[in-house]
């Protein structure tokens, strides 16, 4: 990223999410600031996706708070939605638009100034320069994933929330993804992502949250041994 990103810090404070008669999240807290890459690990149904949905504002929550802070004051409303970008499983891309049109559309929504060449630059960065004008519907899952990450880049949001971004990417794609996420963190962005891949977590995470049944089992520092402990915590039964 060229200029460094403004210092935004997103935090979940004892977030509780209830659907019907079950707790999906039981008082989960999390904090990601500039340069942080927080990885959420845990079995299916642990609440990783729900936590990302709550952070992004996609789902409501019954208790606790989600707070986005910049320079000491809390940021809400339209400003929150401009600074936080979310990449869910279903990618948020229009299948009947080309990759270029999708990126241009979301750039305009975010009020990005020089949209055309910024989009062109982003398409190069995500390696879709050649396929920029094919409908997203015709792209492979991996290429769609790259376009979706391009959407995050083009909006210039500081906080990235990604739900298992690595799915559908080949080894080359995953290397590219990891370097992109690292680049974003280095530029002062905050990243929160869910993942099943120990390699991905080991490489990227500065903090690791091990979740099961909506509860935080362990909140560990990143690095090889943190990753090992985290995956052990979620593997063995309670």
């Amino acid at each position, binding site marked *: 990223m060229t200029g460094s990103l403004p210092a935004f810090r997103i935090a979940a404070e004892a977030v509780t999410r*209830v*659907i*019907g*008669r*079950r*707790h999906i999240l*039981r008082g989960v807290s999390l904090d990601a600031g500039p340069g942080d890459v927080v990885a959420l690990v845990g079995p299916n149904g642990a609440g990783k996706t729900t936590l990302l949905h709550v952070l992004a504002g996609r789902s*409501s929550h*019954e208790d606790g708070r989600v707070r986005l802070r910049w320079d000491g004051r809390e940021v809400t409303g339209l400003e929150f939605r401009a600074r936080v970008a979310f990449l869910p499983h279903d990618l948020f891309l229009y299948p009947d638009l080309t990759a270029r049109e999708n990126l241009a559309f979301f750039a305009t929504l975010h009020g990005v100034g020089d949209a055309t060449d910024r989009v062109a630059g982003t398409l190069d960065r995500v390696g879709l320069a050649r396929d920029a004008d094919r409908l997203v519907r015709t792209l492979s899952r991996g290429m769609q994933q790259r376009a979706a990450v391009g959407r995050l880049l083009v909006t210039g949001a500081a906080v990235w929330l990604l739900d298992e971004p690595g799915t559908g990417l080949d080894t080359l794609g995953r290397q590219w993804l990891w370097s992109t996420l690292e680049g974003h963190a280095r530029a002062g962005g905050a990243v929160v992502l869910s993942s099943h891949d120990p390699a991905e977590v080991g490489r990227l995470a500065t903090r690791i949250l091990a979740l*099961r*049944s*909506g*509860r935080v089992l362990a909140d560990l520092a990143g690095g090889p041994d943190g990753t090992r402990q985290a995956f052990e915590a979620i593997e063995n039964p*309670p």
Partner: protein
Amino acid sequence: MRTGWFEDVKNPVAGLAVAAAVAVVAALVAVFFVAPREATLGISQKIFYFHVASAIHMMVLFALCGLCGLAYLGMRGRPGRWTAVVDGLGVAAAEVGVVLGAVVLVTGPLWARKAWGTWWTWEPRLTLSLMVFLLFLAYLALRAFAGSDRFGRGVASGLAVVGLPALYFIHFAVERWGGAHPQVVFKGGLQNPDMQVAFYASLLAMSLVSATLVVLRLRIERLKGRLDALYLALDRRSPGA
């Protein structure tokens, strides 16, 4: 989950039910024995009392349901004790409203058969009752099919709110649809004091009956809430299946 007044207060259903029964009996006596037979229509005019009473209460419940919808959407941001009450009241009002609507749409034609010689006429009042009935049905269908979770309630409340201005425009359009209409027999109808007594008695009876049904339905909604809270507490204790 701390249970507020909503869960604890001894629901006044029994008292209301008894009062409603007494009022109904009194109203029937007034309608059939106190009020004289109407000159032109004879005995079939007796249908009129409870027909109009039901229609009036249907409209009241419709307005109540709309206001509950407005309140529910207004409180959307902060789920709390009151959202459950307001939402429950909205459902109760809609369900009892549908029942009263059915009553109106059954007794209406019976009344029209005698008063105007046809089973159904697009007479403004009957037409309006039909539209309110349809809006209530749509509200309940939304709750049944668009999900009973927060989203389903939100959509249903939205319709209830839309229903309020809709009622205004429907009423206006239906009134003018047939051009200005002649003086309908029961508009000024009740000069005879005994008839008025019968009318007010049936009005009181229907308001007590509706109130009882709404409170009963609200109680069921309340019990459902408590049961969910208990399941939730159970779920909180164990780390979830």
